């Protein structure tokens, strides 16, 4: 194995560590939301610093490889993809932190039952599952799995699109739910972004493995 191959192997391991951390942040944010566990939410906010540290380290490590090894072909594509995946993972970390902050800021525990119609919990589960499958696609260099993410992101988009009317119905039924409704809507918006970020990551995985650029391509499905 060449030195460059070793460096790339290390980068891949680093990306996966970051990925696990971001997934764990999302899962904790979900649990914190479900049980109004503000301590857990505070942990998510604190751990966001670790996600940021990962981002900076990966940027620096990629920069060093560019400068020292002048990577080409599949190595170059891998590093370009990692730079973007790194950025997307950091944003998902921000999303988990944002959701955790809502939990900390909310004055009272809100009633999930009132918002069942919005499919909030399903959306949370789906976004975590999509993120995990995107990681698997990266780890196993599986472009079929990466392509499957595009379809699954559409489910999140649909839930998001329907959310306004459903939240409005909840408010109409009980005006006291206005505050909670705004939080729910904001969380739904954030989870929809997790789908988008995962889709961007899937595009990068395909770019790295197949050298195909799918960005801004309407026919990727």
């Amino acid at each position, binding site marked *: 194995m060449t030195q460059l191959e070793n460096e790339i192997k290390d980068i891949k391991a680093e990306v996966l560590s970051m990925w696990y951390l971001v997934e764990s942040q999302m899962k904790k944010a979900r649990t914190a939301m479900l049980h109004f566990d503000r301590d857990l939410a505070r942990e998510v906010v604190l751990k966001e610093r670790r996600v940021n540290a990962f981002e900076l380290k990966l940027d620096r490590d990629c920069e060093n490889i560019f400068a020292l090894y002048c990577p*080409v*072909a599949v190595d170059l594509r891998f590093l370009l993809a990692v730079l973007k995946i790194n950025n997307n993972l950091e944003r998902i970390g921000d999303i988990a932190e944002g959701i955790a902050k809502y939990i900390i800021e909310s004055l009272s525990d809100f009633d999930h039952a009132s918002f069942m119609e919005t499919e909030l919990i399903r959306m949370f589960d789906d976004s975590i599952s999509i993120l995990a499958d995107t990681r698997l696609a990266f780890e196993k260099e599986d472009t079929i799995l990466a392509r499957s993410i595009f379809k699954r992101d559409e489910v999140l988009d649909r839930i998001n699109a329907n959310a306004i009317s459903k939240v409005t119905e909840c408010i109409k039924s009980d005006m006291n739910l206005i505050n909670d409704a705004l939080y729910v809507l904001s969380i739904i918006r954030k989870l929809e972004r997790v789908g988008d970020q995962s889709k961007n990551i899937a595009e990068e995985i395909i770019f790295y493995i197949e050298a195909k650029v799918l960005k801004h391509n309407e026919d990727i499905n």
Partner: protein
Amino acid sequence: MESTIVKSVNYNAYFGDNHVVKDVNIDIPRNNVIAVMGPSGCGKTTFLRGINRMHELIPGATAKGKILLNTEDVMEMHPIFVRLKIGMVFQRPNPFPNLSIYDNVIAGYKLNGIKLPKAEKDKIVEHSLTRVALWKEVKDSLTKKGSFLSGGQQQRLCIARAVAMEPEVLLFDEPTSALDPISTSTVEELFHELKKNYTLIIVTHNMQQAARVSDKTAFFYMGELVEYDDTKQMFTNPKDTRTQNYITGRFS
């Protein structure tokens, strides 16, 4: 559309029984820089030397197939005429040590017995040295020996000597491998200028150099032309696994 200036058709080269270049078919477009790369012994230099019929100068060396220069088979042309049209610059700068800078530039004319009036020679010397970005550095010392120049300047003098004959194609065999990074950079910059007037074919072991200076890259392996494509394509997404393994350093 770019016109083809050099085309090889089923070109094969041998050293005795040793088959070193195998059925190479390649189209080289005019005013392009072509990098030829591959591991040692892959036949890239032999192929380069075949283009201006220098290969056959080696005892026991033979060649089959065609090398076309503007559709004319160089095998059918007089070798001296071929080398006037297709100049060559070698790995180590090799100015004639006993000749002045001026005489080095017009050495091709002298060696071919072409007599020119002094004014014409002056014009060729200035023009050639300007083309290789050396004129300003040496215009006041044209009578000095070429060997007094630095390595990078000597290599540019050799390029000027080739350019003076107004060739159509310039062949370079690892032209910067004996130069320091600054001189290498100057010569590489020169390639960008030279391609406006000539077609350049460069054999190089330096992959970054191939990526920096060339429009197209050819990868040779064990005498075969494995892949020939736009340089950007070759260095981002080569089609053949052997090319990918070579450029990423995974070649065994």
